[in-house]
């Protein structure tokens, strides 16, 4: 055992100590308040746990097979795969475009940033309230129908009709309004970290401002931010609950369309009727789908991998 080896070992031990000094408090809290309930839920998914969190009736994979053979659940998963495939790129592009524009605008930059970010301060409940009761209500004095009326259109029952499915317009607009600002801020924070020297060097090399700079400097430099944004967007899309629930449910239930998996599980198993085993199984399935989709898109875009 050489002195050199001892120092190295001490340094390694030291680093472990430092690591846990930084990460420990968060990890402990996460363990207690997230992992304990999480593992508890996973355990419940193998039991018949009607109205109990300490079940005794082990049923193996019954809850899983029940859900996977439930057309309504599979249908909501399928709907939300499609929804995710649409809303993630849309929100990504929209918020990046806003960030780039706001970042480059010379006048009233703070004003624009504020305006686009302000909706993020609204709760989903408040936004759903505005959309459902004022903007897109189905009677002739709603704002959207009033505007339609100016052009001679008949009032549309935005959230009530199924053919054509106008409710998607309502859902997508409320989501974009609520979320774009948040991701725009993340992009802005990312943009400001890009070394201005890179742009100067590019200009010297004769790169045209605009698309070339965007593709070869801005986007690659934003990769870490993009990873975060896409991941959060995907998870958000699959875990959609609040705005859907507030827009489309009434006191008696939720229509069988545009129904996020979580909303379906809520009515089936996690609301008044507490079939906690079934609900937990649904959550596990949903989480696995999110993992598969996230890893899949990371491969596809070459994002996930090693960031360093």
């Amino acid at each position, binding site marked *: 055992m050489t002195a050199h080896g001892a120092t190295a070992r001490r340094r390694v031990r030291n680093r472990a100590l430092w690591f846990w000094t930084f990460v420990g408090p968060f990890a402990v809290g996460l363990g207690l308040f997230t992992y304990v309930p999480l593992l508890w839920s996973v355990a419940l998914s193998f039991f018949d746990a009607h109205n109990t969190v300490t079940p005794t009736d082990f049923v193996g994979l019954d809850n899983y097979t029940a859900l996977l053979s439930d057309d309504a659940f599979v249908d909501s998963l399928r709907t939300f795969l499609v929804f995710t495939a649409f809303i993630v790129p849309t929100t990504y592009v929209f918020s990046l475009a806003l960030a780039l524009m706001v970042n480059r605008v010379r006048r009233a930059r703070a004003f624009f940033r504020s305006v686009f970010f302000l909706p993020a301060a609204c709760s989903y409940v408040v936004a759903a309230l505005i959309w459902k009761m004022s903007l897109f209500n189905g009677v002739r004095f709603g704002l959207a129908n009033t505007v339609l009326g100016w052009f001679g259109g008949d009032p549309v029952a*935005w959230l009530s009709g*199924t053919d054509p499915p106008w409710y998607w317009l309502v859902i997508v607009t409320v989501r974009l309004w609520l979320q774009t600002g948040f991701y725009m801020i993340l992009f802005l924070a990312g943009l400001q970290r890009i070394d201005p020297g890179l742009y100067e060097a590019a200009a010297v090399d004769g790169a045209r401002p605009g698309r070339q700079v965007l593709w070869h400097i801005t986007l690659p430099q934003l990769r870490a931010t993009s990873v975060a944004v896409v991941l959060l967007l995907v998870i958000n899309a699959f875990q959609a609950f609040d705005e859907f629930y507030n827009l489309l449910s009434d006191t008696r239930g939720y229509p069988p369309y545009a129904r996020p998996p979580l909303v379906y599980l809520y009515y089936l198993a996690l609301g*008044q009727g507490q079939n906690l085993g079934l609900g937990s199984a649904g959550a596990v399935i949903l989480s696995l789908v999110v993992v598969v989709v996230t890893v899949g898109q990371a491969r596809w875009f070459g994002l996930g991998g090693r960031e360093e």
Partner: protein
Amino acid sequence: MTISRRTLLAAGPAAGLLTACGSDTGRGDDAGAGPRLSQWYHQYGETGTEQAVERYAAAYPKAKVGVQWRPGNYDQQTAAALLTDSGPDVFEGSPTLDQIQGGQVVDLTDLLDGVRDDFHPAALTPKTYAGRIWGIPQVIDTQLLYYRKSLLSDAGVRPPDTLDALVDAAARLTTKKVKGLFLGNDGGAGVLGGTPLYAAGLRLVTDDGKVGFDDPAAARTLARLHRLYAGGSLLLGAPADWSDPSAFLQGLTAMQWSGLWALPRVQQELGDDFGVLPFPGDGPGAAAVPVGAYGAAVSARSRHRDTAKDFVKWLWIERTDYQEDFALSYGFHIPARISLAKKADRLKTGAAADAVRLTTEHGYAQPLLWTPADQTAYQDALSRIIRGGANPESELRAVVRKVSAELDRVRRKS
């Protein structure tokens, strides 16, 4: 109380976390007059109700009763709270089959000794399982079809007494500015639920625990609802949903399905220019009026079960004066006790009297065996039939399959 004014004031932004974390939960056994009970109500929309229930609670001599007034999704909150020791001792609600089978609520049968026959059967049946009573009905709420007399007579339409007549009336009452009928913003799938089946002479679940609508008549009746939707005579997307009479009062619709609770407001704004009807019968069926009743129940996790039971008996069986006050002084409900309903002056004339009569004659309550899973499957089908024009027969076949499986499950447990 738990977060007192004092801890709050002491809690400046910096010191706040520590101070507040030091306060304790103060639930349970303070010294003083007997034990402490926690009683939960869902939030009633009518002003004065909360003050009233607090007055009743304060008048109970044997324990200190703290009232919790719960906004938001009440049934989910009670379901979650019943899993813990910090839930209510006494709560209003409809104990579900799984809650009863899981032993989460206390058997209250003996409280009803001698007065059982005085409770409206439609209110008591859904609180009864295996011959035992699990909740004492507080009041009866019903839903009815409100119609504007003047609009109907202008259009030469008689108050509809069959489902076909309703479809026809809704179409004839629809003009450019006024729709014929409002069944909720989803076209009726949510609020109607099993009502059309009962109007067709069927049941959700039969008395012997079988699927009650495995019958071609069910598909025929539900198909008529699609005609309402497809004909464009339904109001859709109103700012306030069916439970609020605003759409009816604002003249957006000539007829609206809404709750009995809306009656005072309708009366105030429209005077005599309205009437109430049951959901009209179809084919061999008579009309149907859905009846709901929250009952007072006792949590099995209560540390003071006997006191809690005694309190329930005191309030919901002995104190008829409070029961009458609760039913009729704030909102508008039918007392669950037949003797009280007969006595009440407010229920003796006009539309209110009609409502009571219709409830007595046509009232039905959702059976206890009808679980949330059944409800979800059935409502999905109903929504697809009404709005999507899906084939009622195949939709109902799938529902019948799911419901029988669920009925098998709950039977196995008993």
